[in-house]
């Protein structure tokens, strides 16, 4: 009896081990695994299906969903890539990963005809986000940028600057709240870098290797953040607010302003039609009067893993997935902004996004987050040092911030 059981256990163990080793990647029609954030509308799934069909049995794209949270997506991907996992073929990459993935040798550079396809008609800012050291590393797929959303029934004209907005919100009393993102995560870094860029500063110098953080714009940025967080216009849960908490709070009607991405527009139509009727939009507020604001660009680029057994097919498939018709589909179904400039002029898109012109002008001034392989550490340094925003002391935190970023640049990212 015992012997039979032992044999059984042994068999199962051996077969599991053998199955694990057999590297199951030799199919009749090659399957390309596309690791990308889960997309609830199904636009990615449809794009994968169509590209597979159009390939004429050359390949089949299988979508492997990653978590919604960007940090967790990265955690899963880098762990696999650092171990040389050959099950990943196409990677849905956040724009901030390009330098890191390229430097580590985890993705392949785009060249020749597929590179031309990936660049064709793209807006400049999204295209720049896929370039590292003058080399294209991914195909720009979707983009993203924040706007200012406000209640037209409470405010006549959108405030042009943060100072103006805070004063206006304070004068409105309890309903004046400004919704923003203050949790300790990438969103806080994006907020800081955008304010800094609007003030004419930057985190790193042009080489991307050394710290910049000029004193005057940085101090100005830090005092704006502190002023906002300590004002009665800030939400009491600012320190834990992400994009979605801000959206939900705004949809409850107790706020008059919100800085957020365009996904709030279809959401408001669905969840709070009364509020959607009075939902106005404008460019993200500036920090200096008369100087247009600059917000950091977001979005998704498609890269090809360096460990894929089918690099040529993967390039081809990624180019297909990011083609104009699939960007249109992602825009209309999933509310994801296209990276192809011409799409912003199409009537259907302009119905989906009545604010297409503001988007385009915002995108044309958009700024990149520091393009360095150490971006993740730098971002952590920023969000850790500046959280919670209400406790920022500009003079003191300017020095702490510089020190934290210098450590991060030194690969001492423990901070």
């Amino acid at each position, binding site marked *: 009896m015992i012997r039979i059981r032992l044999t059984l256990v042994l068999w199962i163990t051996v077969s599991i081990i053998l199955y694990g080793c057999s590297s199951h990647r030799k199919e009749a029609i090659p399957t390309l695994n596309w690791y990308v954030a889960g997309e609830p509308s199904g636009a990615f799934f449809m794009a994968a299906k169509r590209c597979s069909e159009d390939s004429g049995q050359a390949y089949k794209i299988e979508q492997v969903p990653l978590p919604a949270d960007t*940090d967790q997506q*990265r*955690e899963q991907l*880098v*762990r696999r890539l*650092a171990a040389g996992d050959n099950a990943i073929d196409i990677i849905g990459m956040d724009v901030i990963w390009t330098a*890191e993935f390229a*430097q*580590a*040798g985890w993705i392949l550079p785009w060249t020749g005809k597929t590179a031309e396809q990936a660049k064709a008609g793209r807006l400049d800012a999204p295209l720049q986000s896929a370039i590292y050291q003058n080399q294209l590393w991914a195909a720009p797929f979707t983009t993203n940028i924040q706007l200012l959303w406000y209640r037209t029934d409470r405010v006549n004209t959108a405030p042009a600057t943060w100072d103006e907005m805070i004063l206006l919100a304070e004068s409105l009393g309890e309903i004046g709240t400004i919704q923003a993102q203050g*949790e*300790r995560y990438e969103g806080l870094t994006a907020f800081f870098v955008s304010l800094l860029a609007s003030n004419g500063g930057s985190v790193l110098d042009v080489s991307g290797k050394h710290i910049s953080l000029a004193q005057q714009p940085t101090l100005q940025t830090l005092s704006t953040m502190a002023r906002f967080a300590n004002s009665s216009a800030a939400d*009491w*849960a600012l*320190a*834990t607010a992400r994009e979605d908490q801000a959206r939900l709070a705004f949809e409850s009607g107790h706020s008059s302003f919100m800085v957020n991405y365009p996904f709030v527009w279809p959401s408001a139509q669905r969840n709070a039609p009364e509020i959607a009727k009075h939902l106005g939009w404008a460019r993200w507020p500036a920090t200096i009067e008369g100087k247009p604001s600059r917000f950091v660009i977001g979005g998704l680029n498609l890269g090809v893993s360096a460990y894929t057994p089918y690099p040529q097919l993967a390039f081809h498939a990624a180019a297909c997935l990011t083609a104009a018709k699939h960007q249109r589909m992602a825009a209309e179904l999933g509310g994801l902004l296209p990276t192809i400039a011409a799409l912003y002029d199409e009537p259907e898109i302009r119905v989906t996004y009545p604010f297409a012109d503001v988007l385009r002008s915002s995108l044309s001034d958009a700024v990149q987050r520091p393009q360095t*392989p*150490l971006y*993740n*550490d730098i971002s*952590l340094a920023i969000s*850790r040092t500046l*959280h*919670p925003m209400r406790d920022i002391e500009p003079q003191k935190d300017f020095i702490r911030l510089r020190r934290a970023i210098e*450590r991060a640049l030194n*690969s*001492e*990212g*423990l*901070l």
Partner: protein
Amino acid sequence: MNQKQSNERRLGWLLCAPAVTALLVVTAYPILYALWLSLFRYDLRFPDQRAFIGLDNYVSILTSEVWWHALGNTLILTIISVSLELLLGFPLALIMHHTLFWRRAVRATTLIPYAIITVVAALAWKFAFDPTIGFVNALLGTEQAWLTQRWSAFLVIILTEIWKTTPFMALLLMAGLTLVPHDLIQAARVDGANAWQRFIKIIVPIMKPAILVAVLFRTLDAFRIFDTVFIQTRGAQGTETVSLLGYNTFIVSLNLGLGSAVSVLIFIGVLIISVLFIKGFGASLTKGGNAE
């Protein structure tokens, strides 16, 4: 006689050998490898830049404000939660030990929190304290975003820990209670000792080894706390612990050298705690034994 003794000794070692080998393979090797890695600059994102840098990683960590904050947080969590668990664990152990009815049912129900996976427990408590969907605010009539401030986030984490692991403490203490001979208690009662005197003068001294084991186990566990903090705050609001720091360095930053150094430092922390406990309590332990 001598021959027999040495033969027995050899047999003993032979019988232990498989277990010792297994332990060496699964613990000594990783520990030594971590020690070795901690002496390198080794970041998986820059595999070409691997270089031997001696103790630089340790210097970098020990001069970083983040490490000392995390260590402070970990010690706060450990000291508060373990002492409260000991205080609550004793009555619980006494109840489990003395209950006359449904002894099994009482013991089983007490152990339920300990049987729940930590991640699940942490999520349950997180939801309970959530300002919009949780019941705690409604119960207390407060409007508090519990996990947005340092003190209240600590409170939620410590409560979760206490709820989760007090049963474990109680279980170990109950094992100690069974060591107390019934006759001794009866004799003390005849001599006129009241309940409190019996507890302090007889039960506690006899149980000392069990208490030491219980507190030591829990302290070591609490010092390495990870799941609860990871789920509830991810280290925000100044609640980062040393294990979370190790995770961030290893898994998020892929910095094997620095991460190994953090692990080694945590290991040293664990060693220090063990030595302190065994040296500190060990002395009074043997003294208590002699008095008896």
